[in-house]
């Protein structure tokens, strides 16, 4: 056993996730991610079972651990009650803690998640806020969305939204006391520290890549990780 394996083994999700894999491949057969990505949950279970730190380090640096959608279909079918999805969660946590997430394209996207979701939670109380769904970040919304954004004050009440209003309803303003409570939860649970860790390692990687880390979405590094997609590498072979 090695240092990385010991850290993995201290995560309750890892302990719950791997009890003894017989390599039957049932998890891969049911895995939706395996349909589209070069990914097999069976391989994940097999590799961590080696308890070999060099193998685990390669996993932590890889795109592979970020392909899983955590749907937990694998857990429902495993004849030995393993859950590769839980193993993945433990691997992702360790990848962030060790900073090895910046060594893969999909791992580097953690900064995009942090800046687009986590920061928005702390700022607005929502993980995704209407004001942030600009067409440059959400092109799938189509050109009509620009009209919706430009005419929000007139349009949103007509579809029943309580945009930035008091009380319940879609897109209501979240009271500051609730946002403060949310922030406290993130602080006590270690979420804020984790967000800082992502920023720190991403800044180092940006420097290494010769890109400006910037703040928010105004960043060369952010643009790089948000748009990079090596489809040929990721796709199921």
């Amino acid at each position, binding site marked *: 056993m090695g240092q990385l394996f010991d850290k993995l083994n201290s995560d309750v999700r890892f302990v719950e996730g791997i009890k003894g894999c017989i390599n039957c491949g049932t998890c891969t057969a049911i895995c939706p991610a395996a349909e589209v990505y070069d990914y097999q949950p069976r391989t994940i279970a097999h590799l961590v079972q080696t308890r070999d730190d060099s193998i685990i380090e390669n996993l932590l640096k890889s795109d592979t651990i970020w392909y899983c959608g955590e749907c937990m279909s694998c857990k429902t079918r495993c004849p030995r009650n393993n859950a590769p999805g839980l193993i993945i*969660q433990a691997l992702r946590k360790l990848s962030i803690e060790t900073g090895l997430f910046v060594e893969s394209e999909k791992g580097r996207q953690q900064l995009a998640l942090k800046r687009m*979701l986590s920061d928005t*939670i702390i700022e607005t109380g929502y993980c*995704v806020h209407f004001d*942030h769904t600009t067409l440059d970040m959400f092109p799938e919304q189509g050109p009509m969305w620009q009209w919706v954004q430009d005419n929000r004050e007139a349009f949103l009440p007509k*579809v*029943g939204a309580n945009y930035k209003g008091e009380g319940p309803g879609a897109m209501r303003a*979240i009271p500051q006391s609730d946002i403060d409570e949310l922030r406290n939860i993130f602080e006590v649970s270690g979420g804020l520290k*984790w967000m800082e860790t992502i920023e720190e390692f991403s800044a180092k990687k940006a420097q290494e890549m010769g890109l400006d880390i910037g703040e928010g979405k105004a960043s060369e590094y952010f643009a790089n990780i948000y748009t990079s997609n090596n489809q040929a590498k990721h796709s199921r072979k």
Partner: protein
Amino acid sequence: MKLEGKRKIWNEYQKDIADDKYFYVRSCIRQAVFPGSENTYLRIMRDVLKKDVHESAHHTTCTGIGYQDRKSVV
């Protein structure tokens, strides 16, 4: 797979779902990118299906974040 075996496998994942008196758990993405969908859904639940649905102004970020954002913050 035989149907009987399939039922057995899924048996422990079955759960009871209440038929009335719901707490409305919001989705941030649904609110943000489908602005009219929540109101339409609640109107159907209340006016058509006559269900009692409770909303809270204090409901912050959606349940989806508990699942999706575990990757980065929890």
